């Protein structure tokens, strides 16, 4: 099944990046969410996949019985999900506020930090 997952991850990345290349902030946000899922799936699949066996030690045993799914990538992804959610919420609010202040959702119109046609810096000492 790994090749199928590799293809799926590739598709996630492609769609996420395509959306992020947009000029519209909302589309970029959607892209970021998909991009986050893509990375999570990438880590998950790289840790190898196994069906339906959670990484839990049965009651009474000291070590897992039989093969279990790899717990390490799961731990990484679990925190990554929460972090990327906070990040997403922050971006969303930032975009929303920017829209309120600047009145556009087009990234070409957001030029407060790097205004177009900035004059030459002073030449002298």
């Amino acid at each position: 099944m790994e090749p199928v997952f590799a293809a799926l991850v590739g598709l996630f990345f492609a769609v996420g990046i395509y959306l992020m290349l947009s000029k519209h902030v909302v589309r970029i946000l959607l892209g970021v969410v998909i991009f986050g899922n893509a990375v999570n799936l990438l880590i998950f699949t790289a840790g190898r996949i196994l069906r339906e066996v959670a990484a839990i030690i049965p009651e009474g045993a000291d070590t897992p019985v039989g093969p279990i799914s790899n717990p390490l990538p799961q731990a990484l992804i679990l925190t990554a999900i929460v972090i990327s959610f906070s990040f997403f919420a922050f971006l969303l609010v930032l975009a929303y506020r920017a829209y309120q202040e600047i009145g556009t959702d087009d990234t070409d119109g957001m030029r407060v930090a790097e205004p177009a046609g900035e004059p030459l810096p002073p030449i002298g000492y």
Partner: protein
Amino acid sequence: MAALAAPLLTRVLKHNAAWVLALAPLWIFLHFGGMLETVAGGNSVSGGFDWIASLGVRFSWYVDGLSLTFALLISGIGTLIVLYSGGYLKGHEQQGRFFSFILLFMGAMQGLVLADSFLMLFVFWELTSIASFLLIGFDHRREASRRAALQALVVTGLGGLALLAGLLVVAMATGANELSTLLASGEALRSSPLYAGAFVLLLGGAFTKSAQFPFHFWLPNAMEAPTPVSAYLHSATMVKAGVYLLMRFNPVMGDTAAWETVLPLFGGATLLVGTLLAVRQSDLKLMLAYTTVASLGLLVMLTGFGSEVAVEAAVLYLIAHSMFKGALFMVAGLIDHETGTRNIASLSGLRRAMPITFTAGLLAALSMGGLPLFFGFLAKEEIYAALAGTDMWAVAATLVAVVGNALMFAIAFAVGLKPFIGPLGDAPRKAHEGPLLLWLGPLVLAVCGLAAGLFSPFAHHLFSSPMASAVAGEPVAVEISTIPHLGLPLALSVLTVLLGIVAYLGQTGLRAAMASLVRTIGWGPDRGFDQSIKALVRLSVAVTRIVQSGRLDIYLTATFIAVALSILVPMVAFDELPAMPQVTEFWFYELTVVAIAVIGLGAVVYARNRLTAIVSLGIQGFAVALLFMLLGAPDLSFTQFMVETLSVVILALVMTRLRLAVSEHRPLGQKALDVTVSAACGLAFGLLLLKVTQLPFDDTLSRFFEVNAKVIAHGRNIVNVIIVDFRGLDTLGEIAVVMIAGLAILALIRIRAKDGAQAVSKQTERAQ
């Protein structure tokens, strides 16, 4: 150390702090003075301790005749300069800062001449550049000062980099990283194929520091500094660092054709250019500055001449120059301080008003002019003795030296004599003798010049001979004395003096002639420096406009192109493409969910309205959650479900108030580019993942967690145990991040819309 205490002391003691502060260099002077006998006996003192032991860097020093003479000059003149600046900058609000800088510089310079390891040499070399930048730009409210300071820093800083490279090349060629060990391996360096590279780089360092033509322009500009700085940095110490370097490397790098051609050539050119430009000036300080350039040229010429006598001459001239030039600079500053002008045309007849200054100036001028009894005379005799010869090369060098010296003679008297004789000039202020602090320095130095000449055997024994030995790399005894003896050198001396007198008398005409010549040429390295700085600014603006266009989509496109290339190119180049996958098993449920995810993705891209987009986003998120569930990760699955739900909720909350279209129309070309980039990235990550899954799996870490979760951490849910126990610190960091994100969002929302709008519009106005 003293530099730190300086501002504090000055605040308490006002200008009298100079007396206290001068104790520091004086102590250094006496300390090194105590070493004189040892070194004069042909020994050297060295020592050090490990600095960065792991890199083999030692903080080590090495004192032989050369370093010792330099150290004594630096600390001795330094003592006088500190006193002098106490008087010169009396009442200046930032005198403390000045003392601090000048002592800092003094320390750096001492370190430079005493350093043994290459790294220390370089560090102190750059420190002198930085300290001189601060000193030249001391009067930072004037543009000319700032420009001169920047110029000095750029030129000498570039030279410093060349020096570093040169030292590294030398270290590569010989394996030595200390001067003392290098001195023993001269043969290895000369025969090394790296010699040429090291030679050019070291000369780059030395020539910029010592203001050799065509890098001479920064030195006269540096006269923007207060006079004590000029007197100290640009006559006695800083610019001599380059000469020190050449002298230091003479035993190991000298005696080759390149050394003996390039050095005299550049030195001679500098000598001529310096004296000719000096004649043109009418400002006392500028005249002296250009003669300094000329003297440095002479020193470089002599160092490169190769013969033992030339080395002796260079040594004598260096000592003599430090004394008379320091004295003359201080005299010039003194005149400026008392009369308010440095213009030679309006200065005359000051001998009554300033008798002590007159004495000091005259003594120094006599030494500079090279008249008998003075140390400068010895130097000049030795120079002519060294240069005299019959071949073309020697004759040319002699000619250059005679012309240069004659013009220097003229300038010496123009500064040391002209302002004092004749009827009283029309200076802006009525002159009277300066205070003790001001005339002490020049007088002591000038008298030293005379004393050293009179008691020359003593001076030779203590200074000249050990130093010349160190420069030549073998024991040399300097024996010349002030009693003139007939011969070619004397004849040349007489010729020089005669020519000099002629030039002195005709200086006004000469000045006009030179000025018109310079105007005709119209372009010099000085203008070139301005032009290159401007060009640099323009270039950086142009590059910034291209690289930082201010458009997010361009930044992102560039980033993702780089990502795709950095994965795909090595994969193809090293033939690491994954093998053709063999899909052997099909899991029905998973495939279904994968299909749902794909549909969700497609729907997000093609969504025509907000709601569709949000819902499709939710679909792909829930599909991912289902995949986690099916593949044995219930924790992930729960979390993903919750997060997707909340994402959809808050997205909906915000989107309902944004009047935005989620669909868009990109131009076809843009679309093609974006599709290509994103497809390439997708392909890259897909291939990468495929390759990873085809490699053997290293489960060491996972196995550790599986085995120890219950035994050590008493938990059966391995994922949770990793999060809260094994990797607890990570999690602590992460919840901190979550909290910070929460705070940031709260802050963003709480900023009043009105204030924000005003701020933005203000910024836009400013930008326009």
